[in-house]
């Protein structure tokens, strides 16, 4: 493999890992809130989170530019305050991957949490546990396999993210050119050998991740 290909692979794995951590931090509380109907306007939240699953990634990417870009709703005040913008940094790749991976985690984790018998939570309440401690000690441990399966799926999705990343982060070798983007460049410039190697690597990585996910899913059921 060329140095460029190795750079792309390292960047992809790093972006996917950070995106998975962010997805977990956002997605698990969200899944819990939606499953136990603790969120006001849960239907709208659910819709917004799920939307990237069905929209073309370029559309999601467009929204991310509107939101986070240098002139975006959040991006502009941020730029004024710090002089820093997320666009075309590797954090942009992380943001794109997180938004795309979030629905996979939220849907899987929500189903797992909903399948936990609510009576167990009531039992914990009568035994003196606050709702917060009950979630940590009873609900989430019992939904663990489903949540891990969701995280694995989210990681796989983050690894393969292309469209939204291209929109927000661009295709800068060594900085935002993750494996899918590097493959695109390689094909565009006729480096078919490089493209084939990266395709193979990404396919194998994704297969491994899906195998782990289905194992966990089977154990959760």
């Amino acid at each position: 493999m060329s140095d460029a290909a190795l750079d792309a692979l390292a960047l992809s794995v790093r972006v996917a890992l950070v995106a998975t951590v962010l997805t977990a931090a956002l997605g698990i509380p969200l899944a819990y809130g939606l499953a136990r109907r603790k969120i006001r306007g849960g239907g709208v939240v659910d819709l917004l989170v799920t939307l990237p699953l069905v929209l073309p990634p370029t559309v999601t990417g467009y929204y991310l530019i509107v939101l986070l870009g240098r002139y975006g709703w959040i991006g502009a005040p941020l730029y004024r305050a710090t002089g820093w913008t997320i666009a075309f940094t590797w954090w942009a790749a992380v943001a794109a991957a997180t938004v795309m991976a979030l629905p996979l985690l939220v849907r899987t984790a929500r189903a797992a949490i909903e399948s936990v018998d609510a009576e167990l939570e009531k039992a914990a309440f009568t035994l003196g546990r606050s709702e917060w401690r009950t979630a940590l000690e009873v609900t989430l441990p019992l939904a663990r396999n489903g949540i891990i399966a969701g995280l694995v799926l989210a990681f796989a999705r983050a690894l393969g993210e292309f469209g939204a990343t291209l929109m927000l982060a661009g295709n800068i070798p060594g900085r935002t050119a993750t494996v899918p983007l590097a493959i695109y460049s390689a094909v565009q410039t006729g480096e078919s050998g490089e493209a084939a190697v990266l395709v193979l690597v990404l396919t194998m990585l994704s297969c491994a991740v899906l195998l782990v996910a289905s194992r966990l899913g089977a154990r959760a059921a």
Partner: protein
Amino acid sequence: MSLTWRLPGFSLDVAWEAGDGVAGLFGPSGSGKTLTLQCLAGLARPDGGRIAVDGRVLFDAAAGIDVPPQQRRVGYVFQGYALFPHLSVAENVGFGLRDRPRAERGRRAGEVMERLELQPFAARMPRELSGGQRQRVALARALATDPALLLLDEPLSALDLPLRRALRDDLRAILAQWGTAAVLVTHDFTEAYRLGDRIVVYESGRVIQSAPRSELLWRPASEAVARIMGIRNVLRGTVAKATPDRIQLHWRGQLLEAVNSPIRSYLPAPGAPLAFFIRPEYVRLIRKDRGAADPSHHMNLMRAQVVDAADFGTTWTLRLRLDEPGPPAQGDHDLEVEVPSLVYEILDIARDRHWELSIHRGSIHVLPT
């Protein structure tokens, strides 16, 4: 406690009090018993009313008091036991003791498991236990926190019948030994009677009687209570004459004499409809080899024919139709009579279908309308 709860199509409006010991909430499914327990535990919030345990107010709609379940000191044994499947027996039992120091927690959990003979299973997971053991773990978990009130929702319904009987007596012993005030929900009258010191009868969201168990058994407050209790031979006649200690009534061409209730002596006008019941095991068949019936000894005499006989092993249940014109009182028969199998054999009831009966006046129980 008293509480009200309104939902479209269902309303709960109940009030009762209980002293120490076990109160059995008894009634058909969907009558609001479990909802009452959930309100007591703070897991459901009633629309109105007031709940107090030992003088401590847990809920008062008017005063805006609603103590959260975590602070109610109420132990709850759920119908399906709700054991934490990811924790061992010892961890389940110790779950409610988290705010105590670690050493004391272990000691208390151990002590409770010891008393409930759960020590051998301490390291097991709930899925490795039998139904009866699970029930004990659920009980131990609730008792470990030393609750002011223990709530049990159909504690035996998840078990097979033979086990159920054995565990019913176990549970009774544990509750008596522990001495914690308890409220138990059941739709099985025998269970309510065996386990409850006081029985509160529910029907469609209302309390139709609340009484010590012996009073309930012998003096149900109404025909509805008698029917819900599954009492057989609940019948309707008309009053002939009522005095403070006797009531005479017409039923199926007979003039029956009954003892008036000594507690709430009851004086309906002649001609008024009147419900009463006769326990099947208190109807006497008169032996034919001892001569004619003796009026000084036998009362409420009538003649009847056996139309059906069912073998229950140790007893036989006979369905009898009186030798009277007109439709029988209970479908194809007027009375159910229960006789021990030995009597069935001695009297040769299998062949001899025609009998004279007598019912002591004390065995005809008049039901207030």
